[in-house]
């Protein structure tokens, strides 16, 4: 139970820190919202001139954007430390956390927050509203789907940003893998086939982050729902395991170059 109270206290402190610079918070949130809406215009332009993309119409793209933006925003706002994990490992910032008696991963994730995440979430909700799929009846399902999507995002993010435990100077690669997941998550599923599809449901899980939840709204099925939730649990479990192994390597000192 003390871990839970700690998590709450950590989240509250994180939120306070993000809000400490009120003006910057508002601008980051607002501009990210505008950023996402602007990007969507490209799809609007295209789908005015084309009846559909292998069955996907504008409202389907809106659902895709809605889910991806909301779940990504959730991760950035609540567990924003995931993006900083690589740097924390490379620069020894984990030391301070390791000497304190609380779970290191939780601590590291909850130490940072970015206001842009709030902007992402608001834009995501707006897209879902525009798509017409956000109703009183669909809301609970959407919450579950978004939480599952966010958990998968977080899980793969932890794995990508834990690479520095084993390889040096991989901070750029970690970031690129993370951004790649997002890139694929905002294009319609029917565009991808074969080996690429396999990749998108494993190493770069845009499939679980975006396509399955979107599919669930167009064509509800308990199997799809179970797969989304199951994948989320699996990715988080893998992430925790990878991070734990990474910490063991870190404390064994085999990755150290500097000493003193």
């Amino acid at each position: 139970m003390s871990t839970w109270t700690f998590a709450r206290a950590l989240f509250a402190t994180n939120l306070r820190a993000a809000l400490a610079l009120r003006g910057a918070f508002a601008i980051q949130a607002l501009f990210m919202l505008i950023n996402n809406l602007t990007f969507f215009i490209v799809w609007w332009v295209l789908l005015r001139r084309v009846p559909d993309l292998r069955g996907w119409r504008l409202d389907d793209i809106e659902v895709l954007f809605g889910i991806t933006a909301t779940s990504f925003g959730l991760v950035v706002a609540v567990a924003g430390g995931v993006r900083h994990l690589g740097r924390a490992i490379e620069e020894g910032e984990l030391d301070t956390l390791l000497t304190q008696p609380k779970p290191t991963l939780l601590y590291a994730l909850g130490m940072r927050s970015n206001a842009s995440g709030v902007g992402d979430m608001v834009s995501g909700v707006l897209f879902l509203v525009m798509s017409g799929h956000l109703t009183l009846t669909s809301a609970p399902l959407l919450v579950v789907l978004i939480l599952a999507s966010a958990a998968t995002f977080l899980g793969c993010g932890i794995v990508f940003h834990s690479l520095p435990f084993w390889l040096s100077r991989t901070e750029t690669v970690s970031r690129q893998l993370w951004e790649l997941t997002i890139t694929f998550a905002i294009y319609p599923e029917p565009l991808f086939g074969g080996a690429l599809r396999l990749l998108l449901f494993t190493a770069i899980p845009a499939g679980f982050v975006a396509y399955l939840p979107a599919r669930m709204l167009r064509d509800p099925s308990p199997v799809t729902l179970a797969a989304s939730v199951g994948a989320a649990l699996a990715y988080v479990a893998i992430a925790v395991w990878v991070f734990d192994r990474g910490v063991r390597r870190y404390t064994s000192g085999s990755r150290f170059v500097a000493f003193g």
Partner: protein
Amino acid sequence: MSTAPAIRLQELTRTFRVAPTTVVRAVDRLTLSVVPGERVAFIGPNGAGKSTTLKVLSGILHPDSGEATVLGYVPWRDRRRLAFEIGTVFGQRSQLWYHLPPRATFALLAHVYEVDPSVHRRRLASLVEAFDLGACLDTPVRQLSLGQRMRAEIVASLLHAPRVLFLDEPTIGLDVSAKATIRGLLRAQSQDGHATLLLTSHDTGDIEHVCERVVILHQGRVLWDGSIDGLRRRFMKTKRLTLWSEAERLTLDLPGARVLAARPHVTEIALDPRKTAVGALVDAACRQGLLHDLTIEDTPLDEVIRDIYGEAAGHGS
């Protein structure tokens, strides 16, 4: 009070591979013991093994071989349980949240260390008073001076009343008065709270004003381990005397006496007391006229330590 050692190191060894074919021994069969409540300084040049030892003792690094216990725990095995009993201050790293006032970090740490709220309130009040943080408690850390920040860092590390405190370069970058303040506070806290202090530093002032015992590390091994007085006495070769005399010049041609500087009426001398006693030198000066003033100082600690390194280097590693 228990006489079991608070910290015990036995043949501790830790190497690092710095290049494909180069392995460096950061800590080499280190053996020592620290009694509860003791204040020990670890000094040495960069690469001597100070930070590595601290990392092993705080549980964030495994040794290659040898043993270590802190408060009965094996640090790298019982890291979580040990964490409740130790405090750490890494001079170059901060555990204070940058955009928030120190009070917010303190509140979070109360949860981290599972400190009872009323105990936390009481302890915070007493620490804030002792460290004079009342004015900065609610100011964002980014607006605090380095001295204020360091005091807040130390308070953060003491909130849970740790039995052992590890400090890595705690006064680095601080001005003279800030250093003096922090040294006094650390000493007092350790004495009042019976906390064991293990501090690494490049600054001999930290050693002289906070600790009673100094361990000099060189290439991962102990070069000297003892009290500061003992250090001086063992390695002391010269006393520094400054004489203000009636006579314009003093002739002090005695064995072991070397004139460092001579101005009209003021003479500075380095004296090896083994060759000529201090009293004998003063007598000789008095016989040449009235002495207005006299100061006698020990060799600065810096020089003593430099001599020790010089000896060690001369003997090879």
